């Protein structure tokens, strides 16, 4: 039989995203493998086992060879990989952290990623995000688990200009958040693209 096709929770929103101006660009991030890593102590051992240094500073993320490592809590991280299959990533990471008393769970589909780029992105986020997004405070490498609108999100800053962010949101909330972002972006959307 043919391979199984994947369907993205926001595929029905693609058209609406298309109509957005360059000042507020929304794009669904491609499918990536994600694993939730729990580890009480991160040291050389962990780095060696994982082949990367987990960020230990709160509210930060670091790029890895093929993804990102995001601080979620004092003993919790989100590891993403664009090259491994979800089950591969989980198996590899789990094998690496188990001996260190850690654990790892595949959460690839638990959240979806939305990329937000453009000069107005900060204004859009500020309509529903209570943390300070000023580039001096929330520049590249910063992250936050917080609330956007009424959805829990993990927010990553990808630039020092405050114009490039990734929002990770629970898949079941993706439609709500997409609607919410489109509504917030309305003010910056040219009349022709608006559906009022």
């Amino acid at each position: 039989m043919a391979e199984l096709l994947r369907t993205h929770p926001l595929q029905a929103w693609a058209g609406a995203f298309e109509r957005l101006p360059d000042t507020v660009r929304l794009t669904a991030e491609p499918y990536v493998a994600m694993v939730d890593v729990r580890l009480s102590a991160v040291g050389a051992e962990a780095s060696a086992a994982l082949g990367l240094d987990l960020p230990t500073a709160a509210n930060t993320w670091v790029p890895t060879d093929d993804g990102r490592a995001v601080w979620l809590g004092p003993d919790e991280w989100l590891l993403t990989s664009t090259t491994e299959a979800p089950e591969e990533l989980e198996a590899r990471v789990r094998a690496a952290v188990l001996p260190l008393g850690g654990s790892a769970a595949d959460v690839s589909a638990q959240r979806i990623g939305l990329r937000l780029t453009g000069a107005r992105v900060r204004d859009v986020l500020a309509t529903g995000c209570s943390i300070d997004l000023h580039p001096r405070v929330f520049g590249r490498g910063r992250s936050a688990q917080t609330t956007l609108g009424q959805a829990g999100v993990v927010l990553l800053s990808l630039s020092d200009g405050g114009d490039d962010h990734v929002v990770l949101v629970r898949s079941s909330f993706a439609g709500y958040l997409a609607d919410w972002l489109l509504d917030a972006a309305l003010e910056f959307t040219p009349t022709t693209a608006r559906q009022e």
Partner: protein
Amino acid sequence: MQLIPCPWCGPREEAEFSYGGQAHVPYPDSPAELSDEEWAHYVFFRANPKGRFAERWNHGAGCRRWFNAIRDTATYRFERVYRLDDPKPGVTELARSREEGTAP
């Protein structure tokens, strides 16, 4: 809307947190040996002071960590937050941290 200083994530808005009531009320070692009254006190009875109160908070919308706080229930002011494995700060210590301005 208050700012609550999460020991891990730093100050965040009140709405990101959930309240856990009185802190330092351990689960009884052997409930079976408690009288109905003693058990009832564990299950239902909590201190409710007007003033300084050691209580539990959870940064539910953030790092999901539980932590303790000393908060004044009359002014709502957080005098101190501390991790679960930290001992309950004494009065003198709180006074000091206020002078030093290290209180949140």
